[in-house]
């Protein structure tokens, strides 16, 4: 369990603040989800909605066990059930607890135009600040994992907060606390990597040669990691991206482009002023030309 600690903001959307921007390795936390231990009971979903006081609308059965069938503004985590046929022709059930990955380099934060609507803490948690959110949906476009959802009720973006309010007082996330098989572990990131790698070793000994730890470096690593039995094909787990990165489109749009184009617009105005001062206006001599 993490100790109670003040969480300092290290990155903030649409803000020019001289902050560290990186999580503090000493304070970094992570949730480790061991897919091989998951029984799909959805206790984590229940704990999540209970702690965060969210009640989703009752949906309808879409032919699979996923309930609700997708993440929603009120369902911040969803079990994804995937039936996969192995080489011997028997069916494997790959169950993945989907939700925010808490990227070290969060695409949502990069895309967000509202100052302070998305923050990253020194322990690596990426959190949405409702009061600053304007509901534009840029975070949805920025996220490489398709996680944020915009509420139709209040037009605010919602996703897993990694129970930042619990972490601040030294409690584990609600889902980790509720998991009956301890498939969800929480603690310092370095410990979780050690634990994950140990678990990967066990699985490999048991014949899952492709078992591995999912901590994608394309987004600088994540603060939610998976132990996967088939880490060679993360796509089999309901389209978990193999090499997630912030989209090029988003990087170009939110990178140097916006600054360069802003200066270009300013320069255009100044060029007009300069031209007027140097060349002067075009005045028609009414008497001469009439």
């Amino acid at each position: 369990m993490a100790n109670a600690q003040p969480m300092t903001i290290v990155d903030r959307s649409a803000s020019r603040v001289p902050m560290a921007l990186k999580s503090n390795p000493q304070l970094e936390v992570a949730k480790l989800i061991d897919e091989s231990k998951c029984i799909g009971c959805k206790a984590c979903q229940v704990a999540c909605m209970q702690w965060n006081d969210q009640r989703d609308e009752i949906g309808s059965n879409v032919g699979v066990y996923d309930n609700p069938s997708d993440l929603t503004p009120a369902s911040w985590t969803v079990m994804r059930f995937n039936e996969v046929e192995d080489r011997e022709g028997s069916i494997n059930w790959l169950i993945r607890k989907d939700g925010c990955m808490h990227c070290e380099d969060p695409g949502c934060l990069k895309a967000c135009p509202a100052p302070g609507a998305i923050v990253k803490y020194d322990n690596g948690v990426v959190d949405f600040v409702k009061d600053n959110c304007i509901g534009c949906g840029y975070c949805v476009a920025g996220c490489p994992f398709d996680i944020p959802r915009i509420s139709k009720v209040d037009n605010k973006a919602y996703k897993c907060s990694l129970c930042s309010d619990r972490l601040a007082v030294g409690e584990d996330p609600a889902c980790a606390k509720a998991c009956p098989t301890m498939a969800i572990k929480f603690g310092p990131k370095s410990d979780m990597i050690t634990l994950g790698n140990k678990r990967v070793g066990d699985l490999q000994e048991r014949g899952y040669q492709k078992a591995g730890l999912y901590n994608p470096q394309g987004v600088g690593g994540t603060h939610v990691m998976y132990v996967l039995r088939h880490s060679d094909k993360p796509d089999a787990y309901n389209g978990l991206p193999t090499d997630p990165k912030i989209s090029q489109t988003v990087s170009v749009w939110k990178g140097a482009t916006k600054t360069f184009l802003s200066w270009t617009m300013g320069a255009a105005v100044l060029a007009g002023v300069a031209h007027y001062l140097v060349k002067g206006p075009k005045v028609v001599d009414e008497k001469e030309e009439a």
Partner: protein
Amino acid sequence: MANNLIRRYSDGERWNHWITAITFILLACSGLAFFHPSFWFLSGVLGGGELSRFLHPIIGVVMFVSFMIFALKKFSENLINQTDKQWLSQIGDVINNRDERLPEAGKYNAGQKAAYWVMLISMILLMGSGIVMWHEFFSHLFSIAVVRAAIFVHAISSVVLILTIIVHVYAALWVKGSMQAMLSGVVSRAWAKHHHPAWFRSVDKS
């Protein structure tokens, strides 16, 4: 009308123009606020971030419709011809106010026509991409990759439009007598003869 004045824009055309202009200013302010954090204070123009997010696309539709009415009306007068190519090749004379060397312009000179086409294309791109990124109603109909591309197209074409409008407004301030055309609808005969001789002759005859 005094007999040294010529009508250039009807009352309807001026309404049309100024509705487009006012909506453009509101859109540019709220849009720039979303574009770069340094412009965030401009979100106050429409009453804050959330209201800007809500109103921007609605005002966008008004601007698009208003602009298109004007643009379709002015379509045939903005087709590029040989004289325009000559005019554009002498852009140095334009900038240096050596108007007497320029080929005779019709109702619109080549610079105005160029602005017309850039505005028309960027307006269409803005409307199209704007619908895709209109999260409240339409974004769910498109894949995230398409929405990303739309946001990018929207950002680039809005900057192109803003730059064109900067040139457009500057030209109106630079060429004395132009502002009057869009405010009161009339220009002096001398102005028309000097800046748009071919157009002047055609209205002078009739």
